[in-house]
């Protein structure tokens, strides 16, 4: 992992010896390279094609796809290469992948979802080998790891608050949920609290299952629920805390012509935006962070770590509540949601001054 430079060989080998050495070398390098204007402050440790591993628990759904694109885009901008290790919902596979990545001597590791118990051992090993780790949405709390999260609790609370306001704290709702997935389990905690908080809101039906065809399954099951409650007004709202649920439910409601039922979801993607913005769409509110942005922040933290900068142990991205009413009439994509929703995205989180230079350098 050496870069070709004007430095002598001794200096170069010294540089890779320890983490502290890297920091010192960074200063040296920047001092030496003042002649090249834009590369001025780029730390040497990141000023080369880095090999980044992204260990993902699953990659189904648009959220995951956009997250992956976000990772790839940000790492590419930095001139590195990211390798996706997809565990297909198999935690032990995820632990294996983490191990493989460590054996590969990658420069940094990103972890998306998963559980601490399965991954702690690997994470500790990575840190011992000097490979920095940034996690997203899991419970790993090893010292030296930066954990970012989109905060499932706020996500759920955000959309549920809107739901409560819209139905005036009283009415019949349908809940779509399935266990076995950390984010859904966390969102459920808030949902239970919500039911306690609003005693006049009654859950009249609950269903849900997660597969590769979640949307269609939800659609079929929602149809059954609609048939069970055929009278207009018998259902006020549906809480679907996962966009695949929300999509299916929305379709079922639309096709049944029961537009009086509103859908409150979680997560947002281009496709979701399109569905929400369709005329008379029952899906009126969703709470989300921008998956690409999450990925960007995670990559930037990792690069900061590789560059030897100080990073926080915990960083929570603030989710936004997106109401269709806040969006304009013409169709909007994820790229420009920020123009309409306050606080959407955080393009400047975890951004060091040298990053612009690094991006510009690799942009050519």
């Amino acid at each position: 992992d050496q870069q070709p430079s004007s430095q002598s060989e001794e200096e170069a080998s010294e540089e890779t010896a320890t983490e502290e050495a890297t920091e010192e070398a960074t200063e040296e390098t920047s001092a030496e390279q003042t002649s090249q204007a834009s590369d001025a402050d780029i730390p040497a440790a990141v000023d080369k094609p880095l090999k980044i591993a992204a260990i993902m628990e699953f990659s189904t759904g648009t959220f995951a796809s956009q997250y992956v694109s976000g990772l790839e885009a940000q790492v590419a901008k930095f001139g590195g290469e990211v390798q996706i290790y997809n565990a297909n919902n198999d935690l032990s596979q995820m632990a294996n992948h983490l191990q493989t990545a460590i054996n590969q001597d990658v420069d940094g590791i990103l972890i998306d979802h998963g559980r601490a118990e399965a991954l702690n051992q690997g994470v500790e090993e990575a840190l011992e080998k000097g490979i920095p780790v940034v996690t997203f949405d899991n419970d790993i709390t090893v010292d030296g790891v930066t954990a970012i999260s989109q905060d499932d609790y706020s996500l759920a609370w955000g959309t549920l608050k809107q739901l409560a306001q819209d139905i005036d704290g009283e009415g019949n709702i349908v809940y779509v949920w399935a266990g076995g997935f950390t984010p859904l389990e966390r969102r459920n905690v808030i949902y239970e609290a919500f039911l306690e908080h609003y005693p006049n809101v009654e859950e009249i039906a609950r269903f849900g299952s997660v597969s590769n065809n979640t949307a269609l399954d939800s659609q079929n099951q929602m149809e059954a629920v609609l048939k069970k409650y055929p009278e207009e007004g018998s259902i006020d709202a549906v809480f679907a805390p996962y966009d695949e649920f929300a999509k299916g439910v929305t379709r079922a409601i639309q096709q049944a012509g029961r537009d009086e039922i509103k859908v409150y979801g979680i997560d947002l993607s281009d496709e979701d935006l399109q569905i929400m913005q369709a005329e008379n769409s029952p899906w009126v509110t969703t709470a989300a962070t921008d998956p690409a942005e999450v990925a960007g922040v995670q990559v930037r933290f990792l690069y900061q770590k590789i560059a030897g900068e100080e990073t926080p142990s915990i960083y929570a991205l603030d989710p936004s509540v997106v109401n269709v009413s806040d969006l304009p009439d013409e169709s909007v994509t994820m790229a420009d949601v920020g123009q309409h929703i306050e606080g959407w995205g955080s393009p400047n989180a975890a951004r060091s001054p040298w990053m612009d230079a690094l991006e510009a350098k690799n942009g050519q």
Partner: protein
Amino acid sequence: MQLKQLNISDYPQQADRKERIVNFFMKFGTLLALGLIIVIFSLTNEQFLTYGNITDILRSISIVTLVAIGVTFSMIVGGFDLSVGSTVSLATVASGALLVWYSQELLVVLLVPLVLGALIGLINAFIVVKIRIPDLIGTLAVMYIINGVHLTYTKGYSIYGNMPMPDGSGTAPGIFIPAFQFIGQGRLFNIPFPVILMVVIVALVHLFLNYTRAGRLFYMTGGNKEAARLSGVPVNRYRTYAYVLSGVFAALAGIVLAARIGTGQVSAGDPLLMDGVAAALIGYSVFGAGKPNVIGTFIGAIIIGILLNGLTMMNVPYYAQDIIKGGILVGALALTYFRKKE
């Protein structure tokens, strides 16, 4: 000789009472179970037997039935096709891509996935019939390959109207045109179109399998490959046909799926494999057929669909639904298969 007295009707009457009861259960056990389920659901929920709900159930099983018909074909020739789920996914993605990325017209959007399905069938046949890799493992390998292909092609993205292109080159030009969506969502004479499609296909396949030469050759091939070969049946050709048909029906299911959800959803077909196989296997027991048959498969799909609908209506959590589903499967099949030692 004595044959002159041969009289078509009196053979069954010889069975004594106990035997007749056993026979009855063997023949009608599965149907009985289905009837019982319907009665229970309609008693516990008055909305269950409404016209709207019945058509909903039928619509919800239309896709799985198409897959299961393909599975039935491969089972008839004594084979097994694990790749149908991935074929559904591929067809779904292919029709989505043709509509959205290439703005193709209906005919192309229907034809290309079907041709792809047939191609996959040919590949399966090549592997299983020609190279003679055992069917379970050969079609499993093909399943992996097709899954990989369609995910690589879409880079993991699902395809929907006017989506931003995955390579960042702006917005896709096409949408899911209404003529296409009609296949999954439309109605003719107030009957959902996929239901009509399903019923017509079930009827045609039933006639085909029972009243045409080709249909019987499928059964012969599966019943005893060696004997069929010795009787001059080109068994390998028929096994090939069966895999091709399996692929084509899976592709058709994929088209209906895409039209129904209005998205070229990646991996959407995976869960259909199990349900399709279950439907076809339940079909064995219907009318005591003891072999794969399309009416049985249809009834199998209905049982699965009704359970999902009725249990959801009864607000049974989905995981508890699995218990009931499994229990009823065992119960229905026990009626059919359990009998005194031969």
